[in-house]
């Protein structure tokens, strides 16, 4: 751990995003003996993206469990273990593979509490990587968190900052309901600074990452950083952007969205999901429902193109939202 988490300025550490995730995992395993991690290659391999590297050696095979390639069985086993007193963290290698466990997530995790008349709690956390940008083509690159955000009974989180990468897991484990955490794969290597002390984070509210007057960029996860870059570029042309990091995709923090858009009167939603039936569509609908008469321009969206994400770099770049797309859309909205 230490080699990844070099001490920086006093009270802060500089580290890669994946190491912040690992600190969160380690903290959870240390704090509560009911916590265990299970998934494909989380143990001996050290995690497909090296997130759980070293945890098997520290916590042993009972708590760092390599599973067979049986997404439905190990996600379902996580639900059963949560119902029976444990605090499981289930890792699914990538969002596309989670579809093999969709029955368990939808028909059991999201449903059992209500269907049992409130008798059952499922304090389960499921983590998975999401998003494109690594030339892994159409079975490893999609952003399906918007689908999951459609389902009542689930709480959907998308950390974007290092602090959230470390802190959201613990808050999710303390939550009595099933929580899905979507970790954008492009962020894994990103360096950043966080406070040395472990801090729990709130998982109910969006956070304003940059303050502006002219337009609200509403986004989450991997797209936050593209929005911040776009905001820098826009500032050079004298346009000042609010950048709202949703953080929690279900339930959505309506009041934060309304507050930002009421201030700027213009909204651009940036979502790596496909446009049709997307989370971006939901956010746009809520803006129209709640602040329609305060808008100076129709809200706009920057989403992925409606194709299976392709392999070739130039095609993949064209398929997912880029900084230039965000900048161009803002100019259109302000025109």
């Amino acid at each position, binding site marked *: 751990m230490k080699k990844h988490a070099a001490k920086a300025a006093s009270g802060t550490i500089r580290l890669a995003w994946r190491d912040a995730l690992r600190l969160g995992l380690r903290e959870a395993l240390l704090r509560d003996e009911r916590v265990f991690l299970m998934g494909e290659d989380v143990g001996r391999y050290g995690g497909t993206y090296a997130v759980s590297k070293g945890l098997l050696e520290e916590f042993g095979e009972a708590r760092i469990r390599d599973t067979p390639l049986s997404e439905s069985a190990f996600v379902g086993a996580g639900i059963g273990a949560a119902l*029976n007193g444990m605090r499981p963290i289930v890792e699914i290698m990538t969002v596309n593979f989670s579809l093999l466990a969709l029955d*368990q997530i939808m028909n059991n995790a999201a449903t059992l509490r209500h269907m*049992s008349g409130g008798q059952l709690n499922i304090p389960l956390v499921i983590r998975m990587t999401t998003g494109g940008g690594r030339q892994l083509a159409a079975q490893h690159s999609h952003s399906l968190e918007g689908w999951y955000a459609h389902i009542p*009974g689930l709480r959907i989180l998308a950390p974007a900052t290092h602090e959230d990468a470390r802190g959201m897991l613990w808050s999710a484990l303390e939550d009595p309901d099933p929580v899905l955490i979507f970790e954008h794969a492009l962020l894994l290597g990103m360096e950043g600074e966080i406070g040395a002390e472990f801090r729990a984070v709130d998982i109910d509210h969006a956070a304003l990452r940059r303050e502006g007057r002219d337009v609200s960029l509403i986004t989450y996860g991997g797209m936050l950083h593209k929005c911040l870059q776009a905001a820098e570029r826009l500032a050079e042309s004298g346009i000042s952007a609010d950048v709202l990091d949703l953080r929690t995709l279900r339930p959505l923090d309506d009041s934060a969205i309304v507050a930002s858009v009421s201030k700027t009167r213009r909204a651009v939603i940036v979502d790596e999901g496909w446009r049709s039936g997307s989370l971006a569509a939901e956010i746009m609908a809520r803006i129209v429902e709640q602040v329609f008469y305060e808008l100076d321009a129709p809200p706009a969206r920057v989403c992925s193109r409606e194709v299976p994400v392709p392999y070739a770099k130039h095609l993949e770049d064209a398929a997912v939202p880029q900084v230039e797309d965000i900048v161009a859309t803002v100019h259109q909205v302000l025109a």
Partner: protein
Amino acid sequence: MATPDCKPSSACPEFAHAADARALLWQMVRIRRFEEKCAELYSAGKIRGFLHLYVGEEAIAAGAVPELRAGDAILATYREHGHALARGVDAGAIMAEMYGKQEGCSRGRGGSMHLFDSTRRFFGGNAIVAGALPLAVGFALADRMRGRDAVTACFFGEGAMAEGEFHEAANLAALWKLPVLFLCENNLYAMGTALTRSQAQTDLAARARIYRMCGGSVDGMDVLAVRHAMREAVAHVRAGNGPAFLEFRTYRFRAHSMFDPELYRERGEVERWKEHCPIERFQGRAIAAGVLDEGELGRIESEVAAEIAAAVAFAEAGTWEPVEDLERDIYARAPGMAPADHPLESRS
């Protein structure tokens, strides 16, 4: 005790005494009469949705469920009234659930296919075929990790063995040597599709053995054989030897659900199976052995009739959950509310 290969031993099991025989018969009669009442109430429009009756299969729940301890967990399918009753879930709460009343064991949110009673460790009532099997593996994993000697019993139909979830769950339970009882009720039809028309290997125990699970096939129309096999399997699993699999060979006397015209099987086949009725068969043996008499049978019928009448009255008297409560219990923690024991130190 389990035989070395853990196949149910062939020794003909017998009831220990009159009270034992009475308890087994009472439970089977109770389930049968409860199901017959459900059919009647369905026709009267009191129960709606899908209703899957257990008539003909009573020996399995009546023989197997009492072999579990209070701390063990049970998961079942959408044909689970019998298991719930045998586990001690209140008949009135089950009936009220089917009426859709808030006094029902799932507050009227589940209906016939989703009976829950966490105080009895009865965890549904799952209408996704094989959907409960991975959950059962997780229950057993938690018991193992917490050092408890509880077992988890998971009932499912033979149709579930065509699902990938059966194979994934069986492999994981066996790989991790978890205390799961995979209890297959083979009534020969997955809805209307015969086992021979849907599965290449119809020797179901053979398919469990490929995962190195011990177990075997049992006459599911014989409550004593069911109990005997279950007792051995529970002991084997509780002792830490890993999961076990039992196939109970049975038959459903009635249609799959109330919408089923039964075009897929011959009337004669149903009649032939009815000759193996688990209740009549057991009654005959008990009377021949001199442990029960006609008078006792009559008393069982009266007791059961009184209990079911009371259950129906309870359901009739039940109340509708206010519509304002519709969205209650979707989350244990209301959105926008920080966990009570978790003061926020930062909002990053």
